[in-house]
């Protein structure tokens, strides 16, 4: 009876865990990172004290690093599962499949490294563990990091699109309220001056995010060389900016100096400026009424 109760409780808890929305870093990942920190400290102390068995601590630290890396890659997979395929074009679906495969390959590589270490840990030499750590670092830098970057950039762009939509809706409501104030013969000159500033900022924020979208679609989703920009730019705009108000016209994208992340961050900074002006306007309205 107790076993059945425990089983039911466990099932309920598992269900609750699965039904919660996916977060970027699960508790497993956070705990795994704490384990890495602890084992690094232990390893450093062992080396400082010239512990003859420091290889044991090196192996232990390496295992913790692999453990964390597996959890981290799995988190990104869960995040990618959340992309609604009904809302994206065929190129994005193909990109998602490619990225998912990269993550699967990475997890497979990490798993194989973990199995190797567990099988050989009793007899491993310092040279062997150093070689393993070096190849792991190379994989992480050359395979995992670019994939993680692409996923993060995709979500940055999508979330900035949502942020812009929210900002635009708020601006539309404010525009209606300013008209109301004007009809009530309240002096709105200062309010209108501030509001015109937000109009410009919102337009710039859209332009920056559109540039980020184009850069991402051109280099990551369609994987085009620079020379083909002008040829199919309109097609990219059609798919990439279906929800954004694109202000881009023909011609090559000149924003290659800025990274996708920089462009989105700059666009978001403008959104924050807009909200600061809205707050100033709110204070002004209080004085007027």
């Amino acid at each position, binding site marked *: 009876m107790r076993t059945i109760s425990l089983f039911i409780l466990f099932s309920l808890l598992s269900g609750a865990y699965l039904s919660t929305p996916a977060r970027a870093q699960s508790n497993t990942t956070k705990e795994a990172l704490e384990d890495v920190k602890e084992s690094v*400290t232990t390893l450093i102390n062992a080396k*400082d004290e010239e512990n003859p068995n420091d290889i044991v601590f090196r192996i232990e630290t390496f295992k913790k*690093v692999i453990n*964390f890396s597996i959890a981290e890659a799995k988190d990104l997979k869960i995040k990618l599962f959340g992309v609604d395929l009904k809302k994206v074009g065929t190129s994005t679906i193909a990109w998602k499949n490619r990225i998912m495969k990269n993550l699967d390959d990475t997890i497979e590589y990490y798993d194989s490294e973990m199995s190797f270490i567990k099988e050989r840990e009793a007899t491993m030499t310092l040279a062997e563990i150093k070689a393993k750590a*070096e190849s792991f670092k190379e994989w992480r830098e050359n395979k995992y990091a670019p994939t993680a970057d692409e996923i993060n950039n995709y979500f940055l762009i999508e979330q900035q699109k949502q942020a812009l939509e929210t900002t635009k809706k*708020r601006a539309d409501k404010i525009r209606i*309220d300013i008209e109301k104030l004007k009809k*009530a013969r309240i002096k709105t000159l200062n309010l209108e001056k501030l509001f015109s500033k937000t109009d410009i900022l919102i337009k710039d924020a859209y332009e920056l995010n559109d540039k980020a979208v184009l850069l991402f679609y051109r280099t990551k989703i369609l994987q085009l060389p620079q020379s083909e920009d002008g040829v199919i730019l309109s097609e990219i705009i059609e798919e990439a900016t279906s929800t954004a108000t694109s202000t881009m016209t023909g011609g090559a994208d000149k924003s290659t100096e800025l990274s996708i992340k920089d462009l989105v*961050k700059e666009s978001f900074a403008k959104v924050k400026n807009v909200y600061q002006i809205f707050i100033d306007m709110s204070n002004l*309205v209080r004085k007027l009424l």
Partner: protein
Amino acid sequence: MSHKIHKQLERLRQISPNPHFAARTRLSILSQKQNISYIDVFILFIKKPMVVGSFAFALVLFVLISVLSPTVTVSSLESIDTLNQEVDALSINIHLKELSYQQNADSMVMAAITEIKDAKASHLNSKTLNSESQNLNIENKDSQNIDKLLDTVIF
């Protein structure tokens, strides 16, 4: 013949209702008056020209006050808290924090790999040195007193 008619009329003139019947009928009429509803009374009241005029005046006054006084509600800018919450709730905010966490985690992993590979200068590890320097309390009172004593001895 005319005498007969005259006599008849004289007799009819003297006819009066039965006092009992008269009293009962009077009571019945009085009780019916009391049954008039308040609605009827109200309708009768508002139909009076004076009342209609007053209502019209009050309405004109209300319209004038409404037009002239600025009682405008500006819901979009009403609360600063709402604006702050709106910008804080943007999911990109959360994502940027996650990116920062990921960057820190990546630095940690790279530091761990360096430690696993590194077999030289184990006594010069910056983490160990930092940790040790923090444990050293240079501004210790005892050491300051020793310094003073040494100064006294020397000079």
